[in-house]
């Protein structure tokens, strides 16, 4: 599915901004053969156009269908006759519109079964694999940045949420391994995607936007996947779970989301409550993929702004598994007099970049590898101004041993410095409350992995 050698766009169009045109355009960078199918053209965007897939004088591995729903079944039959194994059906107008569409969807599902075509969709934006320049998207590149190659894969029921995550992976430089948007999932579903990506060496983290699970096998596949990799899930449609007919006390309580959340966590997934929290947890796991395994839930806060740290401490107190570590008194000698040696370790508004550097190195040296440092930085303060290069090199030096998560928020100036930090490989977050909440959920999963490996809590 992710490594086709040839792709045909059925319903290709010569009109810019039309879906069939933009998909073809997206595929211009594909490192394989591309064909267009439309009886009205001989050529589109310099690509030869055929009246039907059956006229293409070569084998086709994957087709992308962007036709009106009523025309999809006959096109799919032709794909079957051509021996095509995978079909991305971008078209909408199926189950999501009601009975008429549902009937059409059953029809394409049975055509797929009959010919052995695995269907992705309908009503989706399809698949991506940056390694081979494969993007079946109708979002133009100048409207939606494509991520570089990376270790994150995405599975999503919604194309829209897929786009948001994809662009996050692009503009943060985190990068993408594989992407699947499967819309109505008439055939390929989470089970297929998880099973396929379990053995994909490029995928370390799988991000999922899920509205519902229908396939009970997904849980065992997920558990296998999550023993060695990470899966972060956000759920849309937090409505009632279909429970058994009887509604007793507990039955009436059984709302989908809480059952979903518990069961997914039990099978190794990280369940986050929002796309922002998803971005945060993804960033934590991606930056500290190895180090996070050693995390013991202990945190030292180093700051030049007490208020921000009070908020962070509140969040830690409200978290399930995180707590403050004690700070070694030995650090006193290496820190300026105005520093308040406790946790939070408050360097106060007088703090320079050098103070931060010494505190970071000191905490890293005196704590075991399981303690994380949260840097609450007020980049607006004058004494810190311009001296963060020293800080960054100290952070980089300690990042091998200690998880360091920086936090800063502000206007254009702060955001500019934040971007510099990130460009040099230091993860910066703007919201400490969300950071703690995401870290708590990631750590909960680390504990799950530990139990699975050792049988001990």
């Amino acid at each position, binding site marked *: 599915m992710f490594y086709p050698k040839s792709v045909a766009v059925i319903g290709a169009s010569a009109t810019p901004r039309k879906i069939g045109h933009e998909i073809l355009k997206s595929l211009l960078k594909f490192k394989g053969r591309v064909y267009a199918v439309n009886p009205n053209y001989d050529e589109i965007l310099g690509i030869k156009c055929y009246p039907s897939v059956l006229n293409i004088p070569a084998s086709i591995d994957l087709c992308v269908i962007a036709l009106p729903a009523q025309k999809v079944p006959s096109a799919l039959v032709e794909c079957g006759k051509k021996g095509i194994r995978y079909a991305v059906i971008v078209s909408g107008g199926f189950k999501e519109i009601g009975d008429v569409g549902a009937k059409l969807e059953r029809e394409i599902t049975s055509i797929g079964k009959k010919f052995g075509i695995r269907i992705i969709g309908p009503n989706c934006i399809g698949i991506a694999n940056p390694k081979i320049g494969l993007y079946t998207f109708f979002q133009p590149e100048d409207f939606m940045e494509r991520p570089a190659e990376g270790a994150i894969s995405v599975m999503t029921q919604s194309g829209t949420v897929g786009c948001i995550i994809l662009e996050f992976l692009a503009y943060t430089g985190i990068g993408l391994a594989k992407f699947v948007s499967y819309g109505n999932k008439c055939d390929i579903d989470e089970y297929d995607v998880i099973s396929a990506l379990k053995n994909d060496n490029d995928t370390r983290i799988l991000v999922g936007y899920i509205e519902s699970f229908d396939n009970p096998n997904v849980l065992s596949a997920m558990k296998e996947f999550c023993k060695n990799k990470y899966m972060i899930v956000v759920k849309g449609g937090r409505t009632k779970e279909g429970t058994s007919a*009887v509604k*007793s*006390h507990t039955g009436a*309580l059984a709302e989908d989301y*809480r*059952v979903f959340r*518990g069961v997914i966590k039990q099978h190794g997934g990280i369940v986050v409550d929002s796309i922002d929290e998803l971005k945060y947890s993804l960033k934590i796991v991606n930056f500290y993929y190895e180090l996070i395994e050693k995390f013991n839930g202990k945190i030292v806060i180093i700051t030049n702004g007490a208020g921000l740290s009070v908020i962070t401490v509140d969040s830690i107190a409200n978290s399930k598994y995180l707590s403050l570590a004690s700070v070694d008194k030995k650090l006193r000698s290496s820190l300026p007099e105005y520093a308040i040696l406790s946790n939070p370790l408050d360097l106060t508004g007088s703090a320079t970049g050098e103070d931060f550097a010494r505190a970071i190195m000191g905490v890293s040296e005196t704590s075991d590898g399981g303690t994380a440092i949260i840097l609450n930085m007020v980049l607006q303060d004058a004494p810190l101004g311009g001296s963060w290069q020293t800080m960054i090199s100290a952070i980089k030096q300690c990042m091998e041993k200690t998880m360091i998560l920086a936090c800063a928020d502000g206007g254009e100036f702060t955001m500019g410095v934040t971007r510099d930090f990130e460009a040099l490989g230091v993860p910066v977050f703007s919201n400490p409350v969300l950071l703690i909440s995401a870290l708590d959920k990631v750590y*909960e999963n680390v504990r799950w992995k530990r139990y699975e490996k050792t049988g001990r809590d």
Partner: protein
Amino acid sequence: MKRLGEIESKRLLSAHGFTVPKHVVYDNHCDLSKIAFPVAVKASSSQIMHKMREGAIFLNVCRDDVHKAVRQLRKKFPNATVFIEEMVQTGPKSLECAVGVLTTKVYGKCIMFGAGGRFVEIFEDVSFRKIPINSHDARAMIADTIIGGEVERIGATNCVVDFLLRISDLAEHVDIIEMDLNPVIFSDKRAIVLDAKIVLDE
């Protein structure tokens, strides 16, 4: 599908080693001499869904008031079984929790743990896992809930973990499709099921 009343549900639990308060079904020949007062007087039937809300229970009834309580319940619930149950003394070192089992379409049987009592639906301080669970799951369920902090504080964590594992095991091996145990009183040493409703798959 068979809906068990409180007495039958507790009989099933008791047969599987769970602790329920001592009780006597009230009739003209019943022997109250071995029952410690005060007691709870309850009406049990598969039709009564929420005892407190429907007025099917009197708590802390002393010996002199038992007959009056029984008469009132019999009048209100002519088809129910009226029984007398010893009150379980609770204190600062015990907690009322809810434990349940439900059957879901996709995940199958799931177990629930959370804060118990009358307000379970309002506060929704509950956590679910698919059955069977292991001890890590049980601990994570406790951590998921706000009441979990209290469980920890009174030193009842191991007791709750053990109880959840045993309920998971029972639901896995007996044809239970739903179970609602609320409240269950936990302390550092024991778990006592005060009210129970079980639905069996037949």
